[in-house]
């Protein structure tokens, strides 16, 4: 996993946890969405794994290079004062929206438990900003042996981000959790209707506009596809 920092003062000033930016990358046609990972002054950061030419190119950019960045897009997590404990549950690159979520939750006076999982310790992100931090790995190489969902305690507010399969498991346990879903995305601005999220009540809405954060119980998890890279995977 790598982190890319971009000077984007307007986005840095207004972005909320769970919102994303749509980046124009060399070698691919459509923009690619990335949750804003951290904000530092005028700079925003995204976190990513190289899965294709676009992401590989982004990770190999040098200081001073320019990237076309559209945002902030989507609706963020709904954090309001009141609840006392927030549990952040993330898997793999799903860690992306959590540092900002932790910051916002703490600013509202919440006690933050950060649970982060990955397949193995090498794939774990090192970022952890919580009053309590719990690590989980599928192979047991660090922390709890099992998934982040299994490792997490309950809380007044649960925020989750990761593979859709993991989010479906989170939805079983916490129907009221706020989950950040992954979808294929076209425009990011609400016009193409490509990022359809199937809803339990029927029909679809747009991950880029009404989402990407949803109440876990509202999503039709059977119809929401796993989000796979285009590259052939083992």
């Amino acid at each position: 996993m790598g982190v890319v920092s971009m000077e984007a003062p307007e986005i840095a000033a207004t972005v909320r946890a769970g919102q994303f930016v749509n980046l124009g990358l060399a070698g691919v046609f459509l923009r690619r969405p990335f949750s804003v990972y951290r904000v530092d002054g005028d700079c925003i950061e995204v976190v990513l794994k190289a899965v294709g030419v676009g992401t590989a190119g982004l990770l190999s950019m040098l200081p001073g290079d320019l990237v076309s960045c559209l945002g902030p897009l989507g609706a963020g997590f709904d954090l309001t004062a009141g609840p006392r404990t927030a549990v952040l549950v993330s898997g793999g690159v799903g860690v992306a929206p959590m540092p900002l979520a932790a910051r916002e939750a703490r600013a509202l006076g919440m006690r933050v438990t950060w649970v982060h999982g990955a397949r193995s310790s090498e794939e774990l992100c090192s970022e952890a900003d919580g009053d309590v931090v719990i690590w989980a790995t599928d192979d047991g190489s660090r922390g709890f042996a099992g998934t982040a969902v299994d490792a997490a305690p309950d809380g007044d507010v649960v925020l989750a981000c990761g593979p859709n399969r993991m989010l479906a498991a989170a939805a079983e346990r916490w129907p009221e959790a706020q989950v950040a879903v992954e979808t294929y995305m076209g425009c990011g601005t609400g016009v193409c209707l490509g990022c359809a999220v199937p809803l339990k009540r029927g029909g679809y809405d747009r991950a880029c506009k009404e989402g990407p954060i949803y109440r876990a119980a509202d999503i039709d998890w059977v119809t929401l596809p796993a989000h796979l890279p285009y590259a052939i995977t083992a």
Partner: protein
Amino acid sequence: MTVDMGLAVGGLKLRGPVLAASGTFGYGTEVPLLERRALGGMVSKGILLRPRAGTPPPRIVETPSGMLNAIGLQGPGVDALIRDYAPLWASWDFPVLVNINAESVAEYGELTARLDGVPGVAGFEINISCPNVEQGGLYFGNDPRAAAAVTEAVRKRTRLPVWVKLTPMVTEIGGIARAVESAGADALCAVNTFVGMSIDLNANKPRLSFRTGGLSGPAIRPLAVHLAHQAARAVRIPVIGVGGIMRAEDALEFLVAGCTAVQVGTATFVNPRAIAEIHDGIAAYLELRGYSSLADLPRYLARD
């Protein structure tokens, strides 16, 4: 010197030759006002008589220099369009055409009758790339008689401009173009997306849940320029070129090939300012060449 970018096309006066293509600009409410200043006009997301949920995801997939989409005409239906969007359009300073879709000739006529006279509706773009349920699902757009029947049904119910968006999935586009011209179309839009397919080698099945999708983007541009040119040679009514336009030069190719105006679609997904940049780029080009208006642009258009 200021270049005159205004023009009249298919019964409408436009302030510029670049329109937003159907399905790429929603109902006009998503793209910020800032980006609309150079918009010649807008074609709404395709509408049906009744609401439709659309196809399950995945609905889009990137392909070399383009994308496939199978949205499935997701939309709120004509009543909601009239209630929620047309009143906004009535106050806008560019015309909005409604892209209409149906599964029978009678339904196209009914949809037109519902929209005709609604303030904010400046004209119609008929999507003839719909399956004709009464004819076993054959596409209206592949058959000159069916395409003409749809055009005539719409024509009978409105005096507003009627544009027909041609499908590229035909053996001879000139024949279809002449058929809808004879049936009363005011202009043609050439062309809609090409039908394509992409396979996920991890799952050994199509990437799109609908199996196939419409291919758009620069991948189709030379094909679209050719078909728009063929259509323009075949008819006297104006042809609006559409297909893979990303930059002003691309739009100029369609114009020189015989088109009166252009539509920009997929480019807006990649660059929300694409339409304004293309409009400005065309104006700059005309000025550089010393042309005072769009009409001065040389056209390569040997007629059949």
